[in-house]
């Protein structure tokens, strides 16, 4: 029988975790530290390294959600990554330019991000580099558009 882990009390506080990330990656901007919450702004080129460090060094076991926000001049990819050991839900924001919507996939780290990234690709057209199977998840393959983008014309079907 496998070992039963009880996540009763957090091992480390949010402040310690954010300090660790900040000391290892000075380019990361800590937007907000709240009880059980951590908001990070991460540059695109080191996003995978930050996530890898969070998984292997800081006990972030679970990717809850991957989604995208369209700010018209740029996209923001939002990774929600949680740690049961430390009782933290971290929000990792990655800004990417509109004309080159690519970002590193976190599926190699957390397998659960697979379908979330496919959905973000389907509806927003974000290309996740390193994703094992980046296809449309809900809409037919022959669709040539990404309907949740702000510049999508309503009623257009081609």
């Amino acid at each position, binding site marked *: 029988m496998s070992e039963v882990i009880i996540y009763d009390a957090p091992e480390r506080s949010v402040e310690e975790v954010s300090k660790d990330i900040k000391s290892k990656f000075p380019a990361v901007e800590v937007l907000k530290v709240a009880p059980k919450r951590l908001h990070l702004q991460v540059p695109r080129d080191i996003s995978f390294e930050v996530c890898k460090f969070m998984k292997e060094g800081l006990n972030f076991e679970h990717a809850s959600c991957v989604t995208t926000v369209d700010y018209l001049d740029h996209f923001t990819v939002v990774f929600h990554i949680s740690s049961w050991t430390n009782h933290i839900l971290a929000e990792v924001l990655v800004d990417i330019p509109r004309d080159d919507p690519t970002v590193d996939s976190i599926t190699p780290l957390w397998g659960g991000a697979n379908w979330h990234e496919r959905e973000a690709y389907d509806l927003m057209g974000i290309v996740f580099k390193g994703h094992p199977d980046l296809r449309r998840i*809900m*809409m*037919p393959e022959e*669709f040539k*558009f990404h*309907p949740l983008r702000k510049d*999508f014309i*309503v*009623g*257009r*079907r081609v």
Partner: protein
Amino acid sequence: MDIDLSFNAMTMTAKQFGEMTKTMMRETMVATGGKQVIDKITAPIWSWGQRNSVYPLHFGIACCALEMAAAGGPRYDVERLGIVFRSSPRQSDVLLLNGWISAKLRPSLKALYEQMPSPKWVVAMGECTISGGPWYDAYNVIQGADTFIPVDVYIPGCPSRPEAMIQAFNMLNRKLTAENRGSFLDD
């Protein structure tokens, strides 16, 4: 009629012989007016049987499917009207569309319609199936079932009541009565 065929009947395969007999019988019946007589005699019986055993396909898409289920339940009990839900398109006469038709569903629905044996009818139930309904102008919902298959009866409502569904089948019943289809030699 090709009378010459009867001379080499001995050299025919069973299938060819069957086809030849069928054609000969049919053309004789049409030429002598026997078909019209038989049609006239059988039409009331055939039509009666047909309109009292309208079998819709048990295919639920969205929330109107719940109304369809309610109509099949004990309170409305459509089975007393001869409306029996069948699970296979091969056994059904009516394609009852109940719900939005997304672009991904359309090919499957078309295939279902084509799998049903003729004569067949289509009932569009609810706003989504009629015109897209709340999903008017949506990128992924087909704007009405009649854009790709012919529809006989439309039931408005969002969702339609089970009574409305029963009324639609009554209208279909009236349509079948008016058609008064007799079919001795399949047509």
